[in-house]
C-alpha cells in the first residue's frame, strides 16, 4: 500500500508525457497541413473548366450511389447527382433489394423502363434482378439487385459503370454541381499515378457555441486529416467529401469490402505492395462540405458517425498499414482513452493527496491548455493559408470558443470517441493477396 502513491505518480507522469507527445504530433500535423494547404490552394485554378467540360478526351465518370431507401431525400440526392456539370458522366443508382413499392416509386420518379443488358462481373456481387434506364434525357442507369450489404451494392454499381472513373459522394456531403470538373484536374495532371482524388472544405460556422465548436473541429479535420495526410500520401475520405477513384484501381483491390474508408485503406495497402507508385490527391477547394453542426446533438451525431466510419477499418489494419496509420489510430482510439484515464487518476490522486497538485495541474496543461493552443492554431492557420472571408469578430469568437471546447466539450467528446472506437461493428477483412492484382 505504501508504494501506491509512487506508482500513481509514475503512472500520471507517464500519461502526461504520452499525452504531451500526442499534442506535439497533432500540432506538427496541423503545421504540415497548413503548408500543404497553402501549396494546394495556390496551385489550384479553374481556368480550364470550360475546356474540360467540352473535351471528349476527358475520361467519363460514373457516379455510383447506393440508395438506402426510396425516400424524398434519396430521390432528391439522385436528382442533384444528375445535375452535375461534366462532359461525360452517368449516375449508377443501385437499389439494394428494394420492395416492390419502393421500386415503383423509383420507376415513377425517373420514368424508368427495363432494359436487358449484360453487366460486367469484375467484382463478385449478389444477383442483379434487372437494369433500368430513364426515358427522360438523363444519364441514369438503375441497377436492381438482391438485398445485400452496402459494399455489395457499391460493387454492383462499379460493375455496371461504363466509365473508367467512379464518382462517390459521402452520405452527408453537400456538393457543388462542378465538383467532378474540379476533382478530375489532379487525375488529368498525372493520370498514371493518381488513382483517387478527394475533395472537401470546411463549412461556414453555424451560430452559437455548438456551431463554433463544430467549426473548430471541421478546421482541424481539414488541416490534419485532409491536408497533412494528403502531404504524406495517406489520405482517407472524411465526412462530407466527394471522391473520384479509378475503376481499375477499385477492381484491383477486389472492390468494396465495407465502406469507402475501407476501400481507401485497401488502396493504400495495394500502394505499399506496389512500392508507392500511386497517389491519392486532395482538392482543398470548396467542392463539397459537411453541413455545419448547429447543436450539441449535431456534434454528437457527427463525431459518432465519423468514428463509426473510421474505427472498424483502423482496428483491422495489418502490420504494414498499421504503421502507416498508427498516428490516426492513436488519435482516434488511444488518446481519448489515455486522456480520460489521466483525468480520473490525476483527480483521484489529487483528492486523496497521493498525487502532487502540480502533477495534476500538469495533466490539465498538457491536455486542456495544449488543446486550446491547437484549436486557436487551427483557426489562425486556416485563415493564413487562405482568407475565408470570415469577419474579424467571428475569428475572435472562434478563438474564444476554443476555451469551452477544451474545458468540458473535449472531455465529453473523449467519451464519445472511446464508445465509437471500441463499440463500432466489425467489417470483413480484406483477403490477403487481393490488393496486388494487376492494374
Amino acid at each position, binding site marked *: 500500500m505504501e508504494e501506491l502513491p509512487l506508482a500513481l505518480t509514475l503512472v500520471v507522469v507517464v500519461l502526461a508525457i504520452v499525452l504531451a507527445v500526442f499534442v506535439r504530433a497533432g500540432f506538427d500535423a496541423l503545421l504540415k497541413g497548413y503548408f500543404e494547404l497553402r501549396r494546394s490552394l495556390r496551385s489550384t485554378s479553374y481556368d480550364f473548366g*470550360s475546356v474540360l467540360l467540352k473535351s471528349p478526351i476527358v475520361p467519363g465518370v460514373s457516379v455510383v450511389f447506393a440508395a438506402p431507401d426510396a425516400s424524398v431525400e434519396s430521390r432528391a440526392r439522385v436528382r442533384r447527382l444528375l445535375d452535375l456539370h461534366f462532359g461525360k458522366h452517368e449516375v449508377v443508382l443501385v437499389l439494394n433489394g428494394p420492395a416492390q413499392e419502393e421500386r415503383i416509386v423509383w420507376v415513377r420518379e425517373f420514368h424508368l423502363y427495363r432494359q436487358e443488358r449484360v453487366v460486367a462481373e469484375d467484382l463478385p456481387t449478389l444477383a442483379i434482378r434487372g437494369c433500368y434506364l430513364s426515358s427522360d434525357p438523363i444519364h441514369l442507369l438503375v441497377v436492381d439487385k438482391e438485398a445485400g450489404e452496402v459494399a455489395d451494392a457499391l460493387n454492383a454499381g462499379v460493375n455496371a459503370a461504363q466509365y473508367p472513373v467512379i464518382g462517390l459522394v459521402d452520405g452527408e456531403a453537400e456538393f457543388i454541381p462542378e465538383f467532378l470538373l474540379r476533382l478530375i484536374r489532379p487525375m488529368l495532371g498525372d493520370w498514371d499515378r493518381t488513382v483517387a482524388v478527394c475533395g472537401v472544405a470546411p463549412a461556414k460556422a453555424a451560430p452559437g457555441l455548438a456551431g463554433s465548436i463544430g467549426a473548430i473541429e471541421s478546421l482541424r479535420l481539414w488541416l490534419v486529416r485532409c491536408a497533412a495526410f494528403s502531404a504524406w500520401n495517406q489520405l482517407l475520405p472524411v465526412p462530407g467529401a466527394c471522391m473520384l477513384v479509378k475503376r481499375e484501381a477499385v477492381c484491383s483491390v477486389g472492390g468494396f469490402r465495407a465502406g469507402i474508408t475501407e476501400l481507401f485503406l485497401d488502396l493504400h495497402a495495394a500502394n505499399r505492395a506496389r512500392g508507392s507508385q500511386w497517389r491519392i490527391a486532395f482538392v482543398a477547394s470548396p467542392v463539397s462540405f459537411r453541413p455545419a453542426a448547429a447543436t450539441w446533438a449535431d456534434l454528437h451525431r457527427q463525431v459518432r458517425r465519423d468514428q463509426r466510419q473510421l474505427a472498424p477499418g483502423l482496428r483491422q489494419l495489418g502490420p504494414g498499414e498499421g504503421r502507416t496509420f498508427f498516428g490516426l489510430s492513436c488519435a482516434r482510439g488511444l488518446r481519448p482513452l489515455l486522456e480520460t484515464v489521466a483525468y480520473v487518476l490525476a483527480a483521484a490522486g489529487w483528492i486523496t493527496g497521493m498525487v502532487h497538485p502540480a502533477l495534476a495541474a500538469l495533466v490539465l496543461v498538457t491536455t486542456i491548455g495544449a488543446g486550446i493552443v491547437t484549436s486557436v492554431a487551427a*483557426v489562425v492557420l486556416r485563415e493564413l493559408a487562405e482568407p475565408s472571408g470570415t469577419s474579424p469578430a467571428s475569428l475572435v469568437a472562434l478563438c474564444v470558443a476554443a476555451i469551452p471546447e477544451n474545458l468540458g466539450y473535449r472531455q465529453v467528446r473523449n467519451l464519445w470517441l472511446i464508445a465509437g472506437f471500441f463499440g463500432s461493428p466489425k467489417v470483413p477483412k480484406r483477403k490477403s493477396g487481393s490488393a496486388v492484382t494487376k492494374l
Partner: protein
Amino acid sequence: MTLPAAPVVAKALLYAAAALVGVHLVFLLLLLLVAMLRAGTMRRRRAAAAAIRPALHAALVEFLAGGQDDSIFRQHIRTHRTDIVESILLFQGTVGGSARDRLCALALDLGLVQQWCEEGRSRDVIRRRGALSNLAFASAYEPCRRVAGDLLLDALKDDDEEVRLSACRGVLLSESSEQIKRLFELAIQPNLLTRIVLTEDLRRHALALAAGPVRVALRSGEARRARATLDILVAWERAIPIDDLREFLEHRDRDIRVLAFRLASFVTLNFESRLALVRSLTDTDAGIRGLAIVAVGRQKMTEAIPELARCLRCEGLQQARQAAAALGDMPPQGWRTLEELSTNSNPVTALAAGEALARARMEA
C-alpha cells in the same frame, strides 16, 4: 510520497509546460491579429469592388456595342485596376471578332497589357499564371502580340504547367506553322491536361497538321505517341485524310485499337482498312466487336451486311442492338435484312431487329 524530489520535478514540469503553452498562445494571438487585419482589408476591398463593378460592366457592354466612351475606365484605372481587369476578362469568353479586338485594344490603351507583360516575368507563380492567361487572351489582337514579344515563347519553358498552357494558347494565335508543329508535339506528351487544352486550340489547324506532324507521329512506331495522336484525332471529330488506319485497327495495344475504331467512324478509309473493319466483326474481344459494328454502320459498308446479320443472330442483346442499328443505317439492303431477322426464332435477334427497323422507318 517516497520521492522527495517529486514535487520539485512536478512543479518544474508544470511551469515549463505552462510557459510553452503560453508562448505558443501569444505567438498565435499575434498571428490572429495579422489574419484579422487581412480579413478586414479584404472585406473593405470586396465592398468597394461590389460598388463599382455594375457601372464597369454596363460601360463595357456599351463600349463593345460600338460606343466610344471609355472615360469611366480611365477615371478608375488607378484606384480600381483589378476590378477593371476582371470586368474585361469577364467578357473574354463571350465576345469574338471585332468586339474582341476592341476589348484587347482597350486593355492595351489602359496599359494593362504592359502590366501583364511585367507580371509575366514575376517570380510569383500565381502572378505569372494570371498574367500569361490574360496575355493568351489578348494575343488574339496583333498589336498586343507585338507588345508581348517573345514573352509567350519564353513562357513555354516555364516550370509551372498552367503558365505553359496559357503560353501555348497564346502562341497558337500567332498562326506560325513552326510553332503549331511544336505545340502539337507538346500535346502528344503524356500529360493529359496539356493534351486536352491544346487539342481544342489545335482543332483549327487540323488539316495542316494531318498532312505533316500527325502522319509523322502515327508512323513513329511509338505506341504512346500514336495513342496520343489518335486521342487528338478522335477528339477533333473531323473527316481528316488518314493514309492507312489498318495498322491501328489491328494493333496489339487495345487502347490504340479502341481509338482507331472510333476514328474509323468518320474518316475516309482505304480498301485495306475497310477489310480490317469487316474482319474485326469476328474479333475475340466483345468490346472491339461492338466498336467495329458501330464503325461499319457509320461508314455504311454494305459489303459487311452478311457479317452484321451474323452479329445480330449470334451476339448478346447489346451488340445485337448495335448491329441492328448499323443495318438500319443502310437502306434498302440493311432494312431487308432487318425485316427477315425480325421474325427470327432467336428472341434477342427478333427484338433488336424489330426495334431498329421501327426506329429507322420512323426516322425516315
